[in-house]
């Protein structure tokens, strides 16, 4: 029995050449549009019935909504009475929403100061654009600065008024941060160096050792800070009390603060819950379980009524702050559980490897464990953000003028008396589009990150 199966020159002329058959197209009834429809819609009697019923449901629903919202709707009118005279209740009266659009978006903010809100949000967008630019290497630092430092800048844009010493310094820090982001972006795109290294080079320190370069870099940043400080002290903006904040602006402020607080706070709580120190573990667990067991509305009520009691007699706490505190603590507890799930999903081997490398607790956590945990849980984290955004509607119950409350105010205006459904529909659309886009983004992100795991 020969074991040789190598093709030898003797065998070559004995081997028959195999002629493969051509592939034929599939039977027409199984492919193409017809085939797809047969398989998916009309494959048997019950399926066909379902298709008919489904088509009927879709048709009635969409025709009713489109008729009301588009085809029969009134697009130009001066008052609700006019709308009703034109189409009665069968069509939507959109002019009311258009007339109130500024209030829906900015609340009761003084009309001629609205540019500050726009500028503030523009600054945020400008702050994070570098995250999508190529060749920018300091993306992590830029992202963290957007979360930690941007709020100082934004706070003055939105609030204005008298600045004390501390606030002035913080605002200057904010301006410096913004300047740093764009300076670093430009130097990295052009020269491949972060701003501090670039300045060290400019000041003639490129040949010198690392510590000297760092000193030069820090000096340049300090210089920028001083300029910022001078500018900020000259800068005066009219005060706008938080009582006048409202609409989509207020909703975004509350969600934004909640989201930015919940992630770091959640990380701390999750680490605390897994800690080996009994007291810290008990405190973290109690906090998390307490805030997760009760509805958000009870926490909002609790802080609304009780925060003034917790602070010294006579200290005034504005209502927005009470709501923000409640939302932040609530969100932190839920985020903590999500991150704890991520920490649990990391194989024990990672912890052991970090230990074996001689890394301390904080080093191994920040460099090895936490990045992996966060990456695993990104879809759930974004889901939490979406949930938080939806939950901010509850602040309308304790009397804040968020987007939902504003939409109700439209129908109480004498010109648009009784117009409730149209603004409500509009607000629902805003929420749906925001949340839907965020969830699609998270699915995309998950797919991109998972691709990194595929071979």
């Amino acid at each position, binding site marked *: 029995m020969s074991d040789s199966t190598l093709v030898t020159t003797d065998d070559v002329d004995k081997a028959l050449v195999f002629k*493969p058959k051509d*592939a034929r197209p599939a039977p027409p009834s199984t492919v193409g549009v017809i085939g797809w429809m047969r398989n998916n819609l009309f494959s048997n009697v019950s399926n066909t019935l379902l298709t008919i019923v489904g088509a009927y449901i879709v048709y009635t629903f969409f025709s009713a909504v489109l008729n009301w919202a588009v085809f029969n709707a009134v697009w130009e009118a001066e008052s609700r009475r006019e709308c009703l005279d034109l189409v009665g209740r069968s069509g939507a009266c959109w002019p009311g929403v258009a007339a109130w659009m500024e209030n829906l978006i900015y609340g009761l903010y003084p009309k001629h100061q609205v540019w500050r809100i726009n500028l503030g949000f523009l600054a945020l967008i400008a702050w994070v654009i570098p995250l999508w630019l190529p060749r920018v290497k300091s993306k992590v630092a830029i992202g963290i600065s957007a979360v930690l430092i941007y709020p100082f800048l934004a706070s003055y844009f939105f609030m204005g008024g008298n600045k004390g010493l501390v606030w002035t310094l913080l605002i200057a820090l904010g301006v410096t941060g913004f300047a740093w982001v764009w300076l670093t972006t430009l130097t990295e795109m052009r020269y491949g160096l972060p701003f501090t290294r670039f300045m060290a080079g400019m000041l003639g320190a490129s040949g010198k050792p690392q510590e000297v370069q760092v000193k030069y870099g820090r000096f340049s940043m300090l210089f920028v800070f001083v300029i910022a400080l001078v500018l900020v002290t000259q800068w005066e903006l009219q005060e706008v009390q938080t009582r006048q904040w409202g609409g989509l602006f207020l909703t975004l402020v509350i969600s934004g603060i909640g989201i930015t607080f919940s992630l770091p706070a959640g990380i701390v709580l999750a680490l605390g819950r897994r800690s080996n120190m009994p007291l810290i573990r008990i405190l973290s667990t109690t906090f998390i379980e307490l805030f997760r067991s009760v509805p958000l509305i009870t926490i909002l009520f609790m802080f609304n009524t009780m925060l003034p009691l917790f602070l010294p007699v006579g200290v005034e706490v504005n209502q927005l702050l009470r709501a923000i505190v409640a939302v932040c603590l609530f969100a932190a507890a839920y985020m903590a559980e999500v991150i704890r799930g991520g920490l649990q999903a990391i194989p024990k081997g990672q912890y052991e490897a970090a230990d074996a490398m001689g890394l301390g607790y904080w080093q191994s956590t920040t460099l090895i464990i936490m990045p992996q945990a966060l990456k695993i849980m990104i879809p759930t984290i974004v889901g939490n953000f979406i949930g938080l955004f939806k939950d901010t509607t509850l602040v309308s119950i304790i009397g804040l003028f968020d987007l939902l409350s504003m939409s109700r105010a439209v129908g109480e205006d004498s010109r648009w008396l009784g117009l409730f459904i149209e603004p409500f529909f509009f607000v629902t659309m805003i929420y749906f589009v925001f949340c839907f886009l965020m969830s699609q983004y998270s699915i995309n992100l998950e797919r991109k990150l998972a691709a990194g795991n595929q071979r």
Partner: protein
Amino acid sequence: MNTNVLPREQTKSKTSSRPVIELVGMSKWFGSFQVLKDIDLQVYEGERIVVCGPSGSGKSTMIRCINQLEVHQEGDVIINGEAFGNDVAKNDHIRREIGMVFQQFNLFPHLSVLENLTLAPIWVKEMPKHEAESLAMSLLERVRIPEQALKYPLQLSGGQQQRVAIARALCMNPQIMLFDEPTSALDPEMINEVLDVMIELADSGMTMIVVTHEMNFARRVADRVIFMDQGEIVEVAPPGPFFDNPRYDRTRLFLSQILHH
């Protein structure tokens, strides 16, 4: 694996002249991609067929068409003279004579080994429980793991799980056994224990179609070896001529690639 026994001679005494399995001009498409092109094949009772070929050649798809886990679009699949058609009940009835062993074992993890084996006899054949259990135990002895009867599938090693899967298929007393790459998911040291069971099954006269890369097994057990490539049957021959003197260039290329190590 027991290599001391001489390879099986080709003594074919056909009890009936009609093939047990007949594939007539069978073609299958996944969407618009033709994965099987006009397959013609007859398998007689007691025959052991080994199917090999490169990945993507359609060998798994063909074997899954034989028991209609995949549905073909053209041609006929005829088992014991009855063709698979559109009647679901009739198809189930035909399928009863065919047992299948999967690459991923597919044991039911929430049931014990014994319950895995007795489920089909009790619920499909309406066997009383004690009868089903003694049948199951006898088959567990045949695959040499009677002591694992009360364990759960995830508590067993891969080789043990696959042997349980073979015993489970045998509990229904099928006329034909299909094996879809039964050892591909196993660690090397466990492959032989499964192949030994399959050899014993072959020696007892079971009609078998095995998709596998284990060429030594083919030499030992097969009556015919089928080589498939790109959806077609390229070459069919008894193991001797197939391995020593393949006729087609494709076959020689494939054999040189897999027999090299």
